[in-house]
């Protein structure tokens, strides 16, 4: 466990030392959240936009942060960790916890700033919110690890991250409702964890639905996350 936390700690310190990372992870999403606060506070519209920002930036952050594994491969620190007296599973657990913590912190800051700085009219469903976000972050962390095993360069990570995030959010009925969607759009919305998460979060905040009504999205995101984590961890092991 100590070794896991050492991996978490060293990674976080490396990330936080990069000002661009902070701008990208917190500055930009905070600005977007603030901009969304000027939308009319009619039920559904504001939630859709501000939660869309949250869902999109958490996804973008997680996929690009997983690219840090590639960076470590290029720097040689990844190989050096693998030659240390640490089991592969402890190493991967460290990377998973690091990614999860970063995304959870980002999501918490965006939600709390929306509520307390920018006047979001949310006053119920906090437990449901935390559960859905935790499972959404879990699924996207799995996607990040999977891509880290699959892709070879940071450039590839950036390109694929943008493609997945843009397609999943813009066409996944996250920011704005799509009327009479085509078959392709329906498929994207049915697959995209961003779409499932955004709808679940919106339903919690506007309709006050309970967790028992969210079993399908929660199961889908958990299953997808587990599948991707297993595939990613095995793939990275083979690549190593």
């Amino acid at each position, binding site marked *: 466990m*100590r070794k896991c936390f*050492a991996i978490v700690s060293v990674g976080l310190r490396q990330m936080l030392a990069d000002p661009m990372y902070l701008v990208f992870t917190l500055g930009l999403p905070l600005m977007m959240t603030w901009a969304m606060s000027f939308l009319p506070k009619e039920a559904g519209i504001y939630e859709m936009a501000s939660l869309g920002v949250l869902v999109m930036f958490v996804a973008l952050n997680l996929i690009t942060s997983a690219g840090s594994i590639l960076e470590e491969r290029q720097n040689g620190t990844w190989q050096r960790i693998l030659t240390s007296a640490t089991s592969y599973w402890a190493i991967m657990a460290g990377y998973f916890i690091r990614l999860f913590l970063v995304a959870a912190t980002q999501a918490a800051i965006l939600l709390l700033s929306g509520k307390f700085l920018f006047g979001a009219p949310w006053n119920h469903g906090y437990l449901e919110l935390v559960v859905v976000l935790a499972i959404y972050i879990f699924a996207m962390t799995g996607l990040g690890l999977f891509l880290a095993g699959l892709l070879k360069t940071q450039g590839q990570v950036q390109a694929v991250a943008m493609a997945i995030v843009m397609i999943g959010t813009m066409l996944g009925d996250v920011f704005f409702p799509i009327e009479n969607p085509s078959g392709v759009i329906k498929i994207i919305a049915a697959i995209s964890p961003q779409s499932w998460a955004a709808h679940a979060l919106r339903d919690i905040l506007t309709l006050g639905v309970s967790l028992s009504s969210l079993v399908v999205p929660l199961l889908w995101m958990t299953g997808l996350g587990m599948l991707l984590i297993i595939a990613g961890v095995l793939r990275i092991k083979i690549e190593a």
Partner: protein
Amino acid sequence: MNVLDVVNVKKAFGSRQAVDGVSLSISEGEIFGLLGPNGAGKTTTLSLISGLLRPHTGTITIGGWNVVTQATKAKALLGVVPQEPALYSQLSAEANLRFWGTMNGLQTADLTNAVKHALTVVGLTDRAQERVAKYSGGMKRRLNIAAGIIHNPKLLIMDEPTVGVDPQSRNHILQTVKNLREQGTAIIYTSHYVEEVEDLCDRVTVMDQGKVISAGTVSQLLNKAGQYQELVITVNGTKATSLMQLTALPGIKEIFTINNVYKILTSNAEQVLPLTYETILAEGMQVSAIHIHKPSLESLFLKLTGRTLRDQ
């Protein structure tokens, strides 16, 4: 007991046999040189020993622990100093060492003492709190060594630790290696600087195309190189006809051409030189440099393979 035993190890990438039946062993307090040109299989061999790759056949044990099946126990005895510094540039030297110490099982007071000791060994105590990004290339290489030795490993792999460093850092690194040997650490040392290997290593293995082509103590290998000196003549363009004529000259054991360079193995370079020089001039070529080298591991490699250790 040997610290490292490698027995008939093979590793292929697709149809290319990168390591082909390599066996070697290293005992405590021994510096073991691994020589060979790029693509000889050195890096793959080191990756196999450090557990980054799995051999297709054969076994590797460190301190009796199998690197594949008892990886964590074997790796606890292993330190690695990669060719390029593998460090976290945004962290201080001390933070880096604390991390690598933790990853190798050190904690609390042992970790603190090990960090202090490693910084002292590489002479970076005064700069311990500085971010690695601010370090010079030589300082990074010294810290790279500190990260490899922080847990006092029984076996240390050092892959070209002196490439591209200033003379002061180089001397410091070489002295550190000698000190580690005196403390009983077994060291695998690779370098393209043959004189470094000759000076440091107790035994040397020469690899080419995935195989061990020669092995022994430095003096045994130099004896294999024979009494031959290496006469190196740089010209403005070698010719096939002149190569045939030079080969026929008395006193020349073997001759190789590499780009614009004739490399001649001879027992008496000074005696051979005038006739060789005349022959080259008679062929209409111009000589731009002449060097005579004493028998070395480089000339042994040339003799065995017809190539130099720095060939691509």
